[in-house]
């Protein structure tokens, strides 16, 4: 019991900090960077659900990010549609494309799935780049509006945008939280641990993989749409594989397969990158090896490592009770809602 509260407490604390952050700093640049990191976090949560909990590494993630961004951009700029309608449609479009692609992609496993999605991601990028008439190609799409008014609240200012994005992030975290603490979450983890065994115990792996795939693409699309509306202009480069790799790095550093991993990893790396501005284009000189070393020595990232140590310490104290603990990639123990009473 204490464990769950601890996890919930950590998240509550982070949320509190996030809410008061703009008042602590007042620096518009910081607020801008933080908003951007929230946007990335949403995408990372999508990646986490699919790769961390279900075990399927989709390298097409940036492609869906771009689809979300471009859907919003094209609908608002070229069709001059109402913002929120366009926003909703962007999510729908991304989800539908995610469904169609997933239908085929998920028939492949492991290596093939990674390669297949790698190629799908590239196709999406290429199409955006070359289909000038629709996407403006290399020129990029400019003049994307900020989020439309909701009642009396308008979102032209950085501060209001910050809170809007934070709102969507919180929704994302809530959704992911509920999923992993449910039967669906258990099902995904079963698939990750052994897809054959999951089939043997009657789990319809295709249906489950497809639903989590679509959800992960919707998160990517949400992230993309928010990005488009925040930065106000987009180019084909947002669909490049490097974006997927960035998100993957945030996820791995934070802790793949954990609930707070995406938050920790994204904040850390985004801010580190800001500090190391002089490196800018050469960030990967440091982050590349970090990624590789992490996956060899600390595959469960920061959060995973911390949880692992805590768990080991607790194990020494009370060995037999069914423990509530958070997920760690490679050492998965599902968080149970109520600890089982011992006989």
């Amino acid at each position: 019991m204490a464990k769950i509260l601890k996890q919930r407490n950590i998240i509550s604390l982070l949320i509190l900090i996030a809410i008061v952050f703009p008042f602590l700093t007042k620096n518009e640049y910081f607020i801008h960077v933080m908003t951007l990191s929230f946007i990335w976090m949403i995408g990372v949560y999508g990646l986490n659900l699919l790769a961390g909990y279900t075990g399927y590494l989709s390298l097409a993630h940036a492609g869906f990010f771009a689809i979300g961004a471009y859907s919003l951009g094209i609908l608002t700029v070229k069709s001059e549609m109402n913002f929120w309608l366009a926003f909703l449609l962007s999510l729908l479009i991304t989800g539908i494309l995610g469904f169609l692609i997933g239908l085929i992609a998920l028939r492949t496993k492991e290596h093939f799935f990674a390669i297949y999605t790698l190629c799908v991601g590239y196709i999406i990028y290429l199409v955006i780049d070359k289909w000038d008439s629709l996407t403006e190609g290399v020129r990029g799409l400019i003049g994307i509006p900020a989020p439309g008014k909701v009642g009396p609240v308008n979102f032209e200012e950085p501060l209001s945008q910050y809170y809007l994005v934070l709102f969507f992030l919180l929704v994302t975290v809530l959704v992911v939280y509920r999923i992993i603490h449910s039967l669906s979450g258990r099902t995904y983890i079963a698939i990750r641990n052994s897809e054959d065994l999951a089939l043997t115990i009657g789990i319809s792996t295709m249906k489950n993989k497809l639903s989590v795939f679509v959800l992960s693409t919707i998160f990517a699309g949400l992230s993309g749409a928010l990005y488009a509306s925040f930065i106000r202009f987009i180019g084909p480069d947002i669909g490049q594989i490097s974006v997927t790799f960035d998100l993957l790095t945030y996820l791995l550093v934070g802790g793949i397969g954990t609930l707070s991993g995406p938050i920790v990893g994204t904040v850390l790396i985004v801010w580190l990158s800001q500090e190391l501005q002089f490196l800018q284009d050469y960030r990967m000189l440091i982050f590349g090896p970090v990624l590789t070393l992490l996956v060899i020595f600390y595959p469960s990232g920061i959060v995973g490592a911390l949880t692992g140590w805590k768990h080991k310490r607790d194990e020494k104290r009370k060995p037999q009770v069914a423990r509530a603990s958070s997920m760690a990639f490679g050492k998965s123990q599902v968080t149970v809602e109520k600890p089982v009473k011992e006989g």
Partner: protein
Amino acid sequence: MFLETKGLTKRFGGNTAVNNVDFTVEQGKINAIIGPNGAGKSTFFNLISGFHPPTSGQVIFKGQDVTNMPANKIAELGVARTFQTTNLFEQSTVLDNVIVGHRLRTKSTLLDAIFRTHRLKTEEAICREKAMEVIEFTGLKHVMGKQVGSLSQEEKKRTAFALALATDPEIVFLDEPAAGINPDETEGLGELIKQIANKGITVCLIEHKMKMIMKLADKIMVLNYGEKIAEGTPDQIQNNPTVIKAYLGGSAIA
């Protein structure tokens, strides 16, 4: 006919692993399949449980042709199985393993999970209850919070049983359940298998431990080189010359 196979055959390239096997599983009884190593017993299980599609022949369960059904659909119909090399979710605890074993009987979807519907909460409770019931039945209560990877071989075998039972099966296929455990533990597992049968669940097992089989089984089928060479009660099998010859002297391996 509860479960029967008709002319079940499986060829892997040039190798015929299972050749034209007709077999009937008696409901409510303990059925056994024995035979020398490489006789095709595990492959036979794989064909029945939907792991491999057969090259020819049929599998009929409760009157329904399940020959080419995928493994998860067959599990839904009430056919559970364990594996020769213990196949469990190694990184999860015993409890978590068994809870997900009941998932196939639930209908909650992703949307249920996201909106925490009443259905989800009820079904989670049901899975947990079922898990506890099965864990008690298989005598694993004292280790239910332990990670499967850290269990002893015998505990792992029991967990595999528990997982299979959590799917609410009508028939369980146990592939060498007593492999790699000592005689005392074997007795214990034998008892457990009897109790499973007493609950009304049909059992079909593959084993090499003859004493265990002869004590437990109501009906035995003998496979050799993928073909059925004998079928009958333990007494009949023990005295069957073809069977004795197949085992080269018929040494009763404990």
